[in-house]
């Protein structure tokens, strides 16, 4: 056990560098667990470490890769990192992440690519009015950054759902017998006043699905700001972006500082401004995430122009399933602003029958209008093509 302790601590450090949330508590738990399994049994040893140090399925691959690399020869005392021992490039990403963590080859994240931000935002009122109705696509860099600041001030007032919890409230509709009785104790059992309570309400979970393919590039930048603002404004927001693939950026967006958050997003995002396969992305979402994030009356905001590279294959089915598994599916479409907007593209025709609402998002005013819609309840505005 004594020889093992430094190895365990070192292994914990390796896992942490590989991005797993492993702290002293996990190392202690692992040490305790190892007292209950025979050392000679490698699989039990692995299972014991995994049960105590890893808390979610998504981390198993990284753990297993790190385990295989680290405990190659458990008899050896802890080795200093060997810089010559570069992993071959054919290793899968998880292994590379684990071995990089082991060699300490983490590089400071570069902060290039983001345009400089102007601080002299002394816009006049008329400028500001202009900004409200200006299309995102037509904005200059300066106007864009002002718009981003505006967006950060938006609050989404989703209509609240009742929960099954109560709080005391003197004008509440229900009698709180427990509190009433407790009050009566002060008066020797005489019930002089009746305590009341009211149901607690809270906003439903919100899921944002944003298209970041080439045709959406100009909007995607500002909509990402919108997503960041929403994600930091309320609890229970899940954010995804998709082009040809679907990526969950919830954790990355949770960082309060937008620049840091976008940096984190760009690290995990494989396809900025590529093609779109909306049907496939929605299908992935339905399979992998819908059951995990769409509970408890969730509202989905689907942000896309509906222009699908793969000819809307499978889109209708995926959209239908999605609309059935959430309380409200709202499609935000930057193309909708054109007065003569006709649902001609196959993707748009496939999507339209299944969304509960179709809104425009091309300028600040439309975002404002969206905020107003979200507070109006019901799925009564079902729109059909």
């Amino acid at each position, binding site marked *: 056990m004594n020889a093992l302790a430094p190895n365990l601590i070192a292994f914990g450090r390796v896992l942490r560098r590989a991005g797993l949330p492993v702290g002293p508590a996990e190392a202690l738990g692992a040490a305790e667990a190892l007292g*209950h399994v025979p050392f000679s049994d490698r699989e039990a040893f692995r299972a014991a470490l*995994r049960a105590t140090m890893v808390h979610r399925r998504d981390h198993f691959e990284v753990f297993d890769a790190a385990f295989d690399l680290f405990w190659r020869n458990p008899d050896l005392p802890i080795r200093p990192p060997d810089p010559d021992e570069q992993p071959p490039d054919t290793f899968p990403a998880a292994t590379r992440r684990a071995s990089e963590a082991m060699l300490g080859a983490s590089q400071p994240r570069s902060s290039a690519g983001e345009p400089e931000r102007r601080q002299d935002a002394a816009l006049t009122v008329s400028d500001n009015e202009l900004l409200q109705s200006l299309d995102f696509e037509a904005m200059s860099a300066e106007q864009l950054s002002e718009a981003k600041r505006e967006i950060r001030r938006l609050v989404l007032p989703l209509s609240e759902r009742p*929960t099954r*919890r109560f709080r005391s409230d003197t004008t509440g509709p229900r009698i709180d017998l427990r509190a009433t009785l407790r009050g009566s104790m002060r008066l*020797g059992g005489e019930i002089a006043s009746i305590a009341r309570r009211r149901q607690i309400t809270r906003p439903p979970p919100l899921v944002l699905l944003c298209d970041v393919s080439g045709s959406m590039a100009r909007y995607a930048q500002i909509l990402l700001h919108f997503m960041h603002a929403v994600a930091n404004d309320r609890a229970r927001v899940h954010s995804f972006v998709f082009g040809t693939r679907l990526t969950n950026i919830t954790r990355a967006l949770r960082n309060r500082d937008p620049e840091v958050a976008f940096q984190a997003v760009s690290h995990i995002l494989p396809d900025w401004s590529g093609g779109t396969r909306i049907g496939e992305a929605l299908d992935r979402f*339905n399979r992998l995430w819908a*059951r995990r994030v769409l509970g408890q009356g969730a509202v989905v905001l689907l942000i896309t122009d509906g222009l699908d590279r793969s000819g809307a294959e499978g889109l209708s089915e995926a959209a239908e399933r999605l609309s059935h598994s959430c309380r409200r599916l709202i499609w935000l479409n930057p193309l909708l602003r054109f007065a003569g907007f006709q649902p001609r593209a196959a993707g748009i025709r496939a999507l339209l029958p299944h969304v509960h609402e179709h809104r425009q998002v091309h300028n600040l005013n439309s975002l404002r209008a969206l905020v107003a819609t979200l507070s109006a309840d019901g799925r009564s505005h079902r729109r059909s093509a």
Partner: protein
Amino acid sequence: MAEFPPPDIAATQALLEAGGYVADRALATTVHLALAMGRPILLEGEPGTGKTEIAKVLAAQLPRRLVRLQCHDGMDLASAAYEWNHARQLMAIRLAEAAGEADRSALERGLYDRRFLEPRPLLQAIEGSPALLLIDELDRADEPFEAFLLEVLADFQITVPELGTIRAHTPPVVVITSNRTREVHDAIRRRCLYHWVDYPDAARERAILARRAPDVPAALSAQVVAFAQGLRGGDTFFKPPGVAETVDWARALTALNRRELEPDAAEATLGVLLKYQDDIARLRGAELARRVEEAREAAS
């Protein structure tokens, strides 16, 4: 009565086996550790992979009283831990008045007596120790309940403000399951030993089937398992069948007096195996015949 905790992993595995649960080595290790270390087990996995079953088998084999808390949205203290029986309390006040009782503190003590407290699963598991507490589908509960659960799991005690703290004499064995319809909070995860319950491989699934449905003919059983395993690979189906569905399907086909898997009976009973219309539609006709043929080949 089995030794508690079981002395080693093999003994734990044998214990589960004796209860009809065929566990792989990693799961047996996790269960063994949970019993030895007195930590809760968090079991995550697709629906129908036998998470709840582990708790039931453990309870039967240890043996311990199984206390089950089925979680749901907005679950509150009253349905999870305890509730005061206000009707009986009011009655007690009336009776005290009728008897001319005037001592306030005596009345108060009498009113918040243990006999007016209705225990719900969490309190039952703590008072009625030794128990096995199954917190089923924790993902259905909401975050405030998880926060409350943290206290219970940390010290195995519940504080009732009017009565004081109630402690468990013997800490209950705790099994928590989640279907991942929502992510369980990290704080809960960190208190538990974590295990992801995966679909079993063909050999283990046949063993499970032999245990759970002994009447099914061996040939049919092997074909059904091969068929179900075939559905799980890849991304074709929205909800591939779990082990529970495989067992049900084998039973259904046996009930129809089938000794082997045939396309017509398979088509008629597909609803036992697959629970989504799109998935069933995808399997009709030639595709089904092809897969049945494949399963029969794989099983022979």
